[in-house]
């Protein structure tokens, strides 16, 4: 299908080196109706090139906040985020986000959505952009749907388009905020396989936020456990299983149980303290 690529499309589709992320002493406080909440309390974390890191924790533990700070969508009160040694001060297309709710634009069709980020990249002709977009649509298995309207897609297909849209500008980091939380189990399982494959094929550094322990164990090289009030990294688990991983495998269940036990060990007490 892509035999007739022009030079710049080939260039555009080449792998970019994945980023190394350094989160250093990041703190963030939110003012709410009931007072101040310390969402993140001096969180430090290293993510290696092309590493798949999962952030797990109960809701309100600041994991999404941390993701937004890495994306540059929010600013930390103190501390900093470095991507390849450079401080992150604003959003940038080297770090693309896939949100929980599909943030697809309903006024554009599927292809238009995937093209959105590409159109902001200079030095490409529109034909190149379309070819690049089609490459990613093929990667997520939606070639046939490029003309479809967003509302015509199922939840799983929407998230596939979101994934293609996030991949299309060829970022160095992919930030995923509970992207599969709203999907049914069957669709999710399919996507676990796909995301592992795509991660391997496109070599991205991925930070993946979830509250699903099994999902984290299935996808992550490392799983970081967050505790709420204040948001801190409580524990770290390296998942040492061959890929691609099957979410239903026994070994994986072992990891998940271990992580779940740790999660339970601090959650109720923390929750009680917070009340």
């Amino acid at each position, binding site marked *: 299908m892509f035999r007739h690529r022009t030079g710049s499309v080939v260039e555009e589709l080449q792998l970019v080196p994945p980023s190394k992320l350094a989160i250093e002493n990041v703190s963030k406080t939110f003012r709410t109706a009931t007072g101040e909440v310390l969402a993140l309390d001096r969180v430090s974390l290293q993510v290696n090139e092309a590493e798949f890191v999962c952030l797990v924790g109960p809701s309100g533990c600041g994991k999404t906040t941390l993701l937004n700070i890495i994306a540059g969508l929010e600013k930390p009160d103190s501390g900093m985020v470095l991507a390849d040694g450079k401080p992150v001060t604003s959003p940038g297309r080297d770090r693309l986000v896939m949100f929980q709710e599909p*943030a697809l634009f309903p006024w554009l069709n599927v292809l238009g959505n995937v093209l959105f980020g590409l159109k*902001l990249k200079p030095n490409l002709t529109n034909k190149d952009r379309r070819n690049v977009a089609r490459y990613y649509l093929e990667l997520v298995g939606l070639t046939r749907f490029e003309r479809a309207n967003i509302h015509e897609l199922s939840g799983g297909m929407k998230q596939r388009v979101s994934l293609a849209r996030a991949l299309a500008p060829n970022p160095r980091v992919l930030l995923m905020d509970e992207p599969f939380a709203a999907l049914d189990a069957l669709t999710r399982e399919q996507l676990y396989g796909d995301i592992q494959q795509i991660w391997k094929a496109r070599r991205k550094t991925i930070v993946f936020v979830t509250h699903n322990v099994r999902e984290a164990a299935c996808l992550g090289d490392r799983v970081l456990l967050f505790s709420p009030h204040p948001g801190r990294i409580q524990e770290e688990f390296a998942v040492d299983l061959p890929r691609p991983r099957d979410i239903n495998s026994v070994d994986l269940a072992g990891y998940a149980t271990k992580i779940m036990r740790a999660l339970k060990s601090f959650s109720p007490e923390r929750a009680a303290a917070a009340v």
Partner: protein
Amino acid sequence: MRRFLSAASFFVVLILIWQWAFQAKIWSPVLLPSPMQVASYLKNAIEDGTLGHATVITMSRLLSGYFFGIIVGLPLGLLTARWTLLRDTLGTTALGLQTLPSVCWVPLALLWFGQTEAAMLFVVVMGTLWSVIIATETGVRNVPPIYRRAALTMGSKRLHIWLKVIFPASLPFIISGMKQGWAFAWRSLMAAEIFVTILTGFGLGQLLHYGRELSAMDQVIAIMVVIVVIGLLVDKILFSPIEKFLHRRWGTSQA
């Protein structure tokens, strides 16, 4: 086809009832002319050019005022949504003036501009402007913040976000505001044309007015029919395609 037939038979029945009421002499024929009389007035008015001329005059007043109102209203609406200061000032003003029936602009327009085209234009602009400003502002404020965030991460900035994200995202609101503005402008222009004679051109409203002066009921009813038909056509030609597109894209209706 079936839908067309049922609609057509509905109107045929309506005209038959009218004809029956005429023949039964429920009202004096001066007050209720027959469908044929109205049709023959229309035929004559079309043939001698009166109707075409009046329609062109009215529509050119309407369209120029309407598009002026949109061209000014859209950016003002965007700016109003963007800056709190403008929202508190211009936004409140627009909200207040929108509640003012647009006919109420006619006396002021006449005193300011005299019996001129400018007065007509002013009335139409006032009918359009406030609705468009308010609808645009509401539309912008209803854009889910996640669209903006998603666009930001993809490298979209300020003006690009406004043009490529916030504006298209608020289109459903903007279009309904434009539709409302159209309705207001159309009504106020008719009122203005009926009230005052502008020597530079006799519009449909003036034809209606002279119909009354001459007690020519066939003319009154014929012009009313023309006004209704124009309203319908504008809806079908100007708004329907846009609304259909929006419904298809957003998936808001099966139609």
